[in-house]
């Protein structure tokens, strides 16, 4: 039997946060043509902007102040987080009734795998199916989506950008390379600004330029792993499947300060608070984490991070904080300037307690003992009954987020804002990103 031709769709909500803000507040945000959703005030960052505001150059992850300079007439509203999660679930539920396999790639992006449904949909073309799905989602949830389609996830994803807004674009089987030829290398997920620049310095800006280069040269320039990855990506190759059970890859918490901070003790207090938040989410989902990452954005917007993978996974606030504190110390020693944003992330998540790897030598003091874990669970119970701040370690006292600080977190329900999402939800290209 021949393999059926894969039929993959990516359903991407159009300016999702903007749509939700408008639906939630029809009289206010609903009337604003030039709408920016994000943190207000001097330090806020744009989460999403209406297409009309984007025409002025407003982009996600840009400071709100800059957005208002570009587009002074814009109305700024806060992110309606709870409503966004609820609407996202509605879209997902609607899609589950329309497609056999649905994978939520983020709060506003869903991959559908319709492979083998030709007979089921009575010979409907993939474009027609996509159109039907678009209309049904709009009718049922009032959320407008764009849909890209193709034989692979990567193609569907790139086609969706072409379909936006409120459209459908399907790349027919066999047309992948022709479709890719027209794109810029920087459009390909996994090729970030730094790598795009390296490529541009070699005269490679469009995919069609890079297709002329023999793959051996990529390997010579960028090393075997990364070279091969690039050679296959520009040909639209992508072996990843639409997998509804793909496990969570990370949990993170970030805070942008109202005023830049340069005081190590205060940064540590915030870090302790964030460690509590991410470790709490971790435990609620019954997970443990092996990798702890600390991220700093300095006052001049330079973003740095450091991470450590532990021999054994951890789950307590204390262990996460201990590791994070050391990482923060390293980052601060390397460059001690005022800090704009601080974040803690956990990855290498695992659900099973796991069989214990026995050691040859006596282990150095473990980061957390069974006793630590028990104490933490008791504290969790107390916090559940009496509130999150019922019992907190002394070191976090006095670290309530200040008016104007902007926090974001990514845990199960909510998804990180767009600029962060690229890092946490997508697999980075192999090798060094420079």
């Amino acid at each position, binding site marked *: 039997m021949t393999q059926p031709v894969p039929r993959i769709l990516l359903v991407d909500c159009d300016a999702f946060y903007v749509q939700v803000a408008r639906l939630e507040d029809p009289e206010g945000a609903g009337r604003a043509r030039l709408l920016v959703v994000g943190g207000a005030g001097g330090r806020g960052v744009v989460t999403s902007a209406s297409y009309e505001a984007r025409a002025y150059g407003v982009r996600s992850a840009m400071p709100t102040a800059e957005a208002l300079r570009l587009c002074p007439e814009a109305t700024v509203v806060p992110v309606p987080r709870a409503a966004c999660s609820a609407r996202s679930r509605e879209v997902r539920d609607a899609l589950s009734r329309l497609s056999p396999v649905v994978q939520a790639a983020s709060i506003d992006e869903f991959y559908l795998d319709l492979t083998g449904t030709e007979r089921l949909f009575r010979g409907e073309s993939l474009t027609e199916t996509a159109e039907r799905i678009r209309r049904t989602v709009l009718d049922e949830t009032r959320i407008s989506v764009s849909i890209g389609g193709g034989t692979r996830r990567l193609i569907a994803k790139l086609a969706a950008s072409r379909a936006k807004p409120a459209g459908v674009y399907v790349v027919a089987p066999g047309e992948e390379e022709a479709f890719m030829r027209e794109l810029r290398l920087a459009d390909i997920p996994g090729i970030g600004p730094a790598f795009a620049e390296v490529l541009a310095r070699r005269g490679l800006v469009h995919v069609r330029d890079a297709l002329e280069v023999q793959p051996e040269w990529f390997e010579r320039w960028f090393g075997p792993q990364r070279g091969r990855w690039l050679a296959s990506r520009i040909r639209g190759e992508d072996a990843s499947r639409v997998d509804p*059970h793909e496990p969570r890859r990370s949990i993170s918490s970030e805070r942008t300060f109202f005023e830049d901070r340069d005081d190590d003790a205060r940064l540590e207090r915030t870090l302790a608070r964030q460690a509590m938040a991410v470790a709490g989410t971790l435990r609620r989902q019954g997970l443990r984490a*092996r990798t702890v990452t600390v991220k700093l954005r300095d006052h001049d917007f330079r973003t740095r991070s450091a991470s*450590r*993978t*532990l*021999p054994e*996974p951890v789950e307590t606030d204390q262990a996460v904080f201990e590791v994070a504190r050391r990482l923060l110390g390293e980052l601060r020693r*390397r460059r001690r300037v005022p800090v704009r944003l601080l974040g803690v992330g956990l990855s*290498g998540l*695992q659900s*099973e307690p*796991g*069989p*214990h*790897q*026995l*050691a*040859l*030598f006596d*282990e*150095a003091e473990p980061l957390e003992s069974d006793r630590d874990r028990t104490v933490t669970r008791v504290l969790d119970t107390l916090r559940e009954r009496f509130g999150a701040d019922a019992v907190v370690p002394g070191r976090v006292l006095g670290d309530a987020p200040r008016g104007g600080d902007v926090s974001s977190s990514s845990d199960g329900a909510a998804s990180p804002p767009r600029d962060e999402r690229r890092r946490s939800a997508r697999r980075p290209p192999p090798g*060094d990103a*420079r």
Partner: protein
Amino acid sequence: MNFTITRQNLHQGLAAVSASIPTKTTLPVLSNILFEAGQDGVWMSGTDLDVAVRVWAQADVKEQGSLTAPGKKLQEIARELPDQPVEIQTRGDQIELRCGRSNFKLNGLPSEEFPTLPEVDFDEGWSVKGADLHQLIQRTSFAVSTEESRPILNGVLWELRDGQMRMVATNGHRLARMGVPAGSASAPSADFIVPPAALQQVQRLFQDDEEIGVARSGNHLGFRAGGTEVYTRLIEGTYPNYEQVIPKDNDKFAIVDKHQLASAVRRMAVVASDQTHRIRMAFEDGRVHLNVLTPDLGEGHDELELHYEGEGLEIGFNANYLLEVLRYMPTDEVRLTFKAPERAATVEPVSDDEPIDYLCLVMPLRLLD
């Protein structure tokens, strides 16, 4: 400084040196290569402060002198140049390269800013065969720890004693130990803990048939052969007593073809948990059963015929540790020994010729159920 060098000599020298240049550094001069033009050749040096590489290349020197210049850029230029003589000269703090019609000027930094390389007196040292050293490095250094929690395990222990030299590396979960005759009579009795990055350079830059000069000075070790020198800082501290953890009373043993065992383990590893890579092995007379059961994914089963002596045994391993150790075994047949499910297993080569002094240990995973 002014000299002319063949493109090939320049490219080879730069390629040898630039692998020692750190990719990220807060000290700009470390991204540079130091050129020192002497009478009839040029020394090129690079360092990340832990490991330094210094290479001599023949050149036609018109004017002696020294300067540092950006290593990676020079290497990229040398790679793209046509095969013609390259003239290199300093113009103030700039370095100028001319080759055919190509001409480059790169900003350099004064050589005084370059860190002083350790002074090691090779006349006070001893020598080892390249092949011996490579053998030890290749078969042990894979086992070093990459965790920061015990810095001592980030190095390879190199022991010289009683005419023997040995290397040992471990991450606390598995261990590799190999020994060969020391070769040179002048070899001292000493222990060094060497960063694997330095050993990688030794492996990369020296040939099997070279006699490599080795010498120590204070906290540094130097390697030298031909016109190439590698220096490294040594890791300070006491290496854990590894002899103590090598089991002496393992009373069950299996002899098996390593390729067959490795491919069975690899098959099981496909279905093993991404995090623990746990597989389960049950040894009995004449065969071993391999099992894997991963919640949310599924299970796998395989079996293999082998020679086994001793009571039946069920034991769990991280498949990756087992595969690694098997990969470095120099013979087709290997011998595994066990005591109990929670005690160290050993893996050794089985050779009809001279016995090979090579031993790997793997600690099991505790089977909870």
